[in-house]
C-alpha cells in the first residue's frame, strides 16, 4: 500500500508540471507568502525580545521582589529588608544581576521653578551595567559612593528647573512616617532616555540617601532580578518561589505580572499580527483551490478514462489530494528556505530604523533600539510550513470531490 501511495505521489508530481507556468505561479505565491509570514514573525519576535529586554532592565526586572500589595497600593511604607534573601537569590546561576530600588514621589525645587518628581534610590555600581537609562551617561557623571548629595536628573526636568551639573536643588517629600522632609542635592549628571515621562520626572540618588530621607533605612521597595536569558523566567520563578515560600513580607512576581502594560501590549500586537498572517494564508489557499480546480476541470476526459479503466472514484480523490500535497510540500520547502534566508539577513544585519525615523521610537513605555533584529523562531517556522501543507490539502478537498463525482461516460463525452 505504501508503494501505491508513492506511485500516486510520482504521478501527482508529473501532473503538476503539465501546466508548468500555472504551477510555478501558484508555487511562487505560496512560497513568497510563507517567506513573508516567517520573516515578519521572526522580526516581531525580535522586537518583542528587545522590548522585554529593555523593559525589564529599565523596569522591574525579569522577576521582581516586592512587599505584598506594593504594586497595587504604591504606599511607600510597604518596604522590606532584602538582606535575608540576598544569598538565596544571588546563588541562582541564571541570575545576572539583582537591583535594589526605592521609589519616592516628591517635589524638586530649584531657584527658578519646582516640579513633581519620582525620586529613585539605586545602587549605582549594580545599575550602571544593566539599566538602559544610564547608557547615555559617561562614567565621570556616575553617582559617587562617598558623595551622598549626588543626583542624576532627567533632561527635560533639568531644563525646566534650569539646572546644570554642579547646581543645587531641594527635594521635598513625605516619608514613611507621614512627615514632610526636605533634603539638598547637587546635580551630578543629566539623563536622556527618550521616554517623555522619565525625562520629565526622574531623579536618581543613592539607595542609602533615599532610605534615610524616607525613614526606611536598609529597606527597599523593589528588587529587580535580571536573568541571563528571557526563557529562564519560568524555571527561575519556580525555584525562587519554592525557596522563598516561607518568607513573610515579600512577594515574587514575573515581569508579566509586574509590568502588565508591557505584557498586554506585546500580546495584543502578537494577536493582531497573527490574524493578518492567517488572512494572508487564507488568500493563498484560495489561489491553490483555484489552480487545482482548473486542473481537475481540464482533465475530466482523462479522469473519465481512468475511471473507465477500473479505478474506483476514491482513487481520483487520492490523486488530486496527492497533487495538493506535493504542491504544498514543495512550497513549504521553498518558502522555508526563503524565510530562512530573510531571517538570516535580518538577524545578522538587522533593519536600521534611523534611516526612516530620526527620533527615538517609544512604544508601550519602552525605547526601541535603533536597529531592529530578527530572532530565529524555528518551531514557529516549522509549524507555519506544516500549516501551509495542511491548508493546501484542505484546499484540494472541493476539487477532489468534483473529480470523484465524475461518471466515466459523461466525463469522456467532454472535449
Amino acid at each position, binding site marked *: 500500500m505504501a508503494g501505491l501511495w508513492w506511485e500516486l505521489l510520482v*504521478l501527482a508530481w508529473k501532473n503538476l508540471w503539465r501546466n508548468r507556468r500555472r504551477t510555478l505561479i501558484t508555487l511562487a505565491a505560496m512560497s513568497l507568502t510563507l517567506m513573508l509570514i516567517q520573516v515578519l514573525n521572526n522580526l516581531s519576535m525580535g522586537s518583542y525580545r528587545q522590548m522585554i529586554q529593555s523593559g525589564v532592565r529599565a523596569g522591574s526586572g525579569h522577576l521582581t521582589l516586592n512587599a505584598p500589595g506594593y504594586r497595587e497600593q504604591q504606599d511607600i511604607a510597604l518596604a522590606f529588608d532584602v538582606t535575608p534573601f540576598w544569598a538565596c537569590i544571588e546563588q541562582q546561576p541564571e541570575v545576572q544581576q539583582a537591583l535594589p530600588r526605592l521609589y519616592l514621589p516628591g517635589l524638586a525645587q530649584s531657584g527658578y521653578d519646582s516640579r513633581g518628581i519620582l525620586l529613585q534610590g539605586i545602587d549605582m555600581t549594580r545599575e550602571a551595567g544593566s539599566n538602559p537609562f544610564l547608557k547615555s551617561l559617561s562614567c565621570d557623571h556616575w553617582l559617587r559612593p562617598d558623595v551622598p548629595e549626588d543626583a542624576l536628573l532627567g533632561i527635560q526636568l533639568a531644563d525646566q528647573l534650569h539646572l546644570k551639573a554642579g547646581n543645587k536643588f531641594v527635594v521635598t517629600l513625605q516619608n514613611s512616617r507621614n512627615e514632610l522632609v526636605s533634603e539638598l542635592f547637587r546635580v551630578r549628571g543629566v539623563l536622556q532616555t527618550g521616554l517623555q515621562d522619565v525625562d520629565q520626572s526622574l531623579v536618581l540618588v543613592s539607595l542609602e540617601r533615599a532610605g534615610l530621607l524616607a525613614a526606611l533605612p536598609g529597606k527597599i521597595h523593589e528588587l529587580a532580578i535580571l536573568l541571563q536569558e528571557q526563557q529562564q523566567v519560568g524555571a527561575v520563578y519556580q525555584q525562587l518561589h519554592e525557596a522563598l515560600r516561607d518568607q513573610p513580607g515579600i512577594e515574587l512576581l514575573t515581569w508579566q505580572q509586574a509590568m502588565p502594560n508591557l505584557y498586554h501590549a506585546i500580546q495584543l500586537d502578537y494577536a493582531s499580527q497573527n490574524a493578518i498572517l492567517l488572512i494572508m494564508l487564507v488568500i493563498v489557499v484560495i489561489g491553490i483551490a483555484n489552480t487545482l480546480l482548473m486542473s481537475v476541470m481540464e482533465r475530466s476526459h482523462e479522469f473519465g478514462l481512468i475511471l473507465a*479503466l477500473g479505478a474506483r472514484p476514491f482513487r481520483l480523490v487520492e490523486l488530486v489530494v496527492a497533487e495538493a500535497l506535493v504542491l504544498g510540500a514543495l512550497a513549504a520547502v521553498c518558502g522555508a528556505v526563503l524565510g530562512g534566508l530573510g531571517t538570516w539577513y535580518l538577524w545578522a544585519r538587522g533593519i536600521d530604523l534611523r534611516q526612516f525615523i530620526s527620533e527615538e521610537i517609544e512604544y508601550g513605555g519602552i525605547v526601541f533600539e535603533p536597529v531592529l533584529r530578527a530572532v530565529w523562531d524555528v518551531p514557529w517556522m516549522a509549524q507555519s510550513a506544516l500549516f501551509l501543507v495542511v491548508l493546501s490539502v484542505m484546499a484540494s478537498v472541493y476539487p477532489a470531490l468534483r473529480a470523484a463525482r465524475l461518471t466515466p461516460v459523461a466525463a469522456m463525452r467532454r472535449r
Partner: protein
Amino acid sequence: MSGIELQQVSKIYPSGHQQVQALVDLTLSIDDGEFCVLAGPSGSGKTTLLNLIGCLDRATSGTIRLFGQDVATCSARQLADFRLQRIGFVFQSYNLIPVLSAEENVAFPLMLRGVGRDERRRRALELLTVLGLVGLEHRRPADLSGGQQQRVAVARALVGEPSVVLADEPTANLDTGNSVELLEMMHRLNRERGTTFIFSSHDPLVIKQAERVIELQDGRLKADNRRCSAHET
C-alpha cells in the same frame, strides 16, 4: 457458454424535454472467444451498447448478464472492480494518459490492481513486443503516431488478461494500412489467447475482417451474421 447476455435491454437518454431511445429491446448473446464487430450508421447505438457491456453505464430496462452476474445488482464500486479485473477498453482517441510513457500507460491497470513494479514492467514490455512497439516504451503519447497510440491502447486493454476487450471505433483515426494492421493484431490475439473482442466500426474494410457482424439501426438489431471465417486465405 455465453459470457455476455442481453435481454430486452433499452437505454433512454434524457435530452432536454425529449428523450432519446438509444437502444430498444435489444436481445443478444456473445460467446467467449468471439471476434465480433458492431456495425451501423452514426447514431445507431454502437457506443451506447459498448458502454453498457463495459459497465460504464446502466441500462434503463432489461437485464445484462456478464459471466453469469446480473450487472444491475452491482454497486458502482463493484462495477469499477469488474472493469478492472475482466474488461479491457480501447477508445477512439485521446485514450492514453499524457504524462505517462507508453510502458507506464500499458502498466496502468496493473498499478491500479496493486501489482509490483517489476512484474508490471515485465508484462508491459512483453505486450509491447507482441504489438511491435519495442524501442518506443519510454515515449510519451504525444511523441507517438496515431497508429502507435492505438496499439499502446490495445496493449493496455490486454495487459490485465481480461475476458473481454471492448473497442469503440479503434481505427477511426487511422489510415487504411494502420487499420488493417491493428485489426490483424487483434485477431491474432483473439485466436492465441481466446479473448473475446467486440469492436464498433462503420468502415466496410474493417467489418469485412470480423467473424460476426452485429448490425444496429436506430437502436434495434437489424442483422446478426456469422461468417465461417472471414480471415482465412
